[in-house]
């Protein structure tokens, strides 16, 4: 029997996926803008950050409404809770894309350090791929894929450490590099945080499927 609840849930689900795609795009743009030192795009990302926040609030309101009006249980409840929790994770991932945009503007035309550029380029690619994959996993309710993405998160953490080592090394070689190094460090850190939020969404996908609350990134190194 098709219920009114199912229609509302389908709408909620579509809105959530749409927000996910928006966040995914913004992250991709912020990474590209940083790699190309494209301050104009970075500024646009900063100016439009409120779009993501507004979508988050709209989705939260809708989930509260559905909980109050339908009093969902079992799978229904898990779908709603998953969206309610994952939507905050997506919004925060979006905040880090905005941070990267700020870093891009701060970086201006400072000299590029090839080894760091290469590492950050890879991290950026991994992170944007991760965001796309988590959305796919959500749409397909694929808990295996969600589980697998936690490994990518661990790789990101590892690369973050490499960025740190190289940045310190560069600072030793060139004391004027301090500001540049701090920006590289911040961007790597922001990408790592995005990976953490994606991992949180993975945990909610597993919860949605199984009803169990798991901790996927407990092994990841805390920064």
């Amino acid at each position, binding site marked *: *029997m098709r*219920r009114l*609840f199912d229609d509302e849930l389908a709408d909620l689900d579509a809105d959530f996926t749409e927000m996910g795609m928006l966040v995914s795009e913004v992250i991709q743009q912020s990474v590209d803008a940083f790699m190309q030192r494209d301050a104009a795009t970075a500024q646009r990302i900063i100016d439009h950050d409120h779009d993501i926040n507004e979508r988050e609030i709209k989705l939260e309101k809708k989930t509260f409404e559905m909980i109050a009006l339908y*009093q*969902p*249980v*079992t*799978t*229904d*409840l898990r779908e709603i809770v998953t969206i309610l929790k994952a939507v905050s994770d997506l919004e925060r991932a979006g905040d880090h894309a905005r941070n990267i945009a700020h870093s891009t503007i701060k970086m201006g035309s400072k000299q590029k350090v090839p080894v760091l550029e290469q590492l950050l380029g890879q991290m950026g690619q991994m992170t944007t791929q991760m965001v796309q994959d988590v959305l796919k996993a959500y749409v397909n309710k694929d808990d295996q894929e969600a589980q697998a993405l936690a490994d990518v998160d661990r790789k990101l953490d590892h690369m973050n450490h490499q960025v740190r080592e190289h940045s310190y090394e560069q600072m030793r070689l060139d004391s004027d590099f301090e500001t540049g190094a701090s920006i590289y460090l911040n961007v790597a850190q922001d990408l790592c945080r995005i990976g953490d939020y994606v991992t949180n969404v993975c945990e909610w996908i597993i919860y949605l499927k199984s*009803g169990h609350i798991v901790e996927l990134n407990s092994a990841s190194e805390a920064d």
Partner: protein
Amino acid sequence: MAEEILTTQDLHLYYGNKEALKGINLNFKEKGITALIGPSGCGKSTYLRTLNRMNDLIPGVTITGTARFKGKDLYAPDADTVEIRKEIGMVFQQPNPFPFSIYDNVIYGLRIAGEKDKEKLDAVVEKSLRQAAVWDEVKDHLHESALALSGGQQQRVCIARVLAVSPEIILLDEPTSALDPVSSSQIETTLLNLRQDYTIIIVTHNLQQASRIADRTAFFMNGELVEVDATKNIFMNPAQKQTEDYISGRFG
């Protein structure tokens, strides 16, 4: 570890040729609340009524299997239904106070049993009405007609009437379905207070009621027990798809 106070094994009940209970295996430990849920006609009320032999009076009923209270067969040839119903009391859907005073309603069972000691009767009336959480509302009107009370108060007086004979088990058949939400919530609070001292089995169509008050929930369907588990598991992550479909309103 609480003892199993009530057990039913392979319990079948037929109304003529129609099999209404298809071999129920369900046991109850002492104390706590178990809710029986399921769509209309699933057998939950029939099952509840077998537990204090309320089906005896229905013509054409056949019961097989065993139902035991503290190890004693409820359907043994020498089983005394009056004794059984003293141990296993029942509260019905419609509040059904007798057309007497509140006081006489509560002591009805004791008076039939021949109790005449006024002091003892007074004490039982107060204790039972307090346990049923209605004492403060009726203490100044004990000798007025119980029929003058609101539905919710009548139902709590009916609970007091059951408590007065000191049962071990209280069966309730949709006790709040005729009541407004405030009265329902008072009955629920009453039951929550009683769950430490009594074994309570409640049939309810109100799923939120089951989830609010029951320690354990049993889902019935087409005369079968589909699943019984801690209420939290039934409402968060039931093992059977039928249970999930029913409690999330996909059918029933």
